[in-house]
């Protein structure tokens, strides 16, 4: 999921994100950032998540695992 981290960093407008990075700590993690992330995982991984499903997700690592689990499902 290194590619996922790179793509998410781009959306969050930072050089890199770590597994334990808190999503809420990024100023770019607003409604536009969430939409951009949802669009990215749709086009790159074929996974459709709603913003409601993302409300419980706190860290970048949790986000990555959610995408990964939905990919297998």
């Amino acid at each position, binding site marked *: 999921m290194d590619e996922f981290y790179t793509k998410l960093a781009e959306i969050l407008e930072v050089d890199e994100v770590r597994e334990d990075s808190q999503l809420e700590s990024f*100023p770019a993690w607003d*409604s*536009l950032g969430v*939409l951009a992330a*949802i669009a990215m995982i*749709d086009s790159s991984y074929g996974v459709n998540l*709603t*913003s409601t499903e993302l409300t419980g997700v706190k860290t970048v690592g949790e986000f990555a695992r959610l995408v990964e689990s939905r990919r297998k499902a």
Partner: protein
Amino acid sequence: MNFTFRDKRIAGILTVLPEHEQKFADDMRNFDFPKARSLKLKQVMGYDRHRLVSAGTCASDLAVFGLRHLFEKGLLTPDGLDAMIVVTQSPDFFMPPTSNVIQGELGLKQDLFCMDITQGCAGFVVGLIQAFLMLEQESVSRVALVNVDILSRKVSTKDRNSYPLIGDAASITIVERGTDPSPIYANLKMDGTRREALMIPAGGFRLPSSPETAVPEDVGDGNFRAKDNLRMDGTAVFNFVQVEVPPMIDELLAFAAVPIDQVDWFLFHQPNKFMLQKLADKMKVPHAKMPSNVVEKFGNASGVTIPTAITLNLGERLQSESFQVCLAGFGVGLTWASMLMKMGSMRFCGMVDYPEQGDR
């Protein structure tokens, strides 16, 4: 559900745009949001400027102006109309229907089937389906399909989710019997369980407007809106479109037995540039075949965006040439509908500005 229609055509389209143009740069001042993020929003979504009516302007005003324009230019005769379908979510009144208001204002004949349809972003395709059904009757040889919405009057200026993209407009599409041998294909789906993704919560009988429903509430992320205002769940709508629209188009083309590369233009509803480009990518359609320039120039006027995309991008050409076009609308309901048809040799296909009548 699938539909097939024969011997029908679109004879002309006129888009009516309020002349007042508002810039996104000015909207930004109302948002409780860092400027850099507003500029990012502008860049990603393709927001730039939008056309808005003044406070007193109603749906019928835009429609009457457009129809009168066609009568005066000799492009349409009042007595030649047998039906008028008005598709709107912003009627002049709960009762009577806006179609009757327009009929009365223009003094149209009594032998006129007036019908209002409450539909949003799928309203152009739904309206065409209804017009084609009416044309099956011998007594109906020409239908005026009026799509009109003035929803800017229902959107909170402090709601960054909806305000920058909203636009007001009307279109008049003349639908007649035709002689082109190729049938018109359409399909349509609806899902009322997801009806709350796009709604105006207050103002109907379920929750009448009151001083309480007019109070702007902090809905998070720096946005404020009242229950009287339009509410859109942006990510839910985005997902709905990406999940439902591509298979709908696949089914339409399979039903019509037309390969995707034989479609000249994909004239889709215009929610914003971002959503359309993602849709084009998913469908593997070149961006050049799917115009996405309506929101940046005029804003999103729900059911009017497809006719606006047509008159803006193909207005001149459709009067002399003919194209295989695929239309698709998706939104309120939820509703998603598409249509494959030959479009061309129109008597008119253009746009006019509606002059402001009063103070803004």
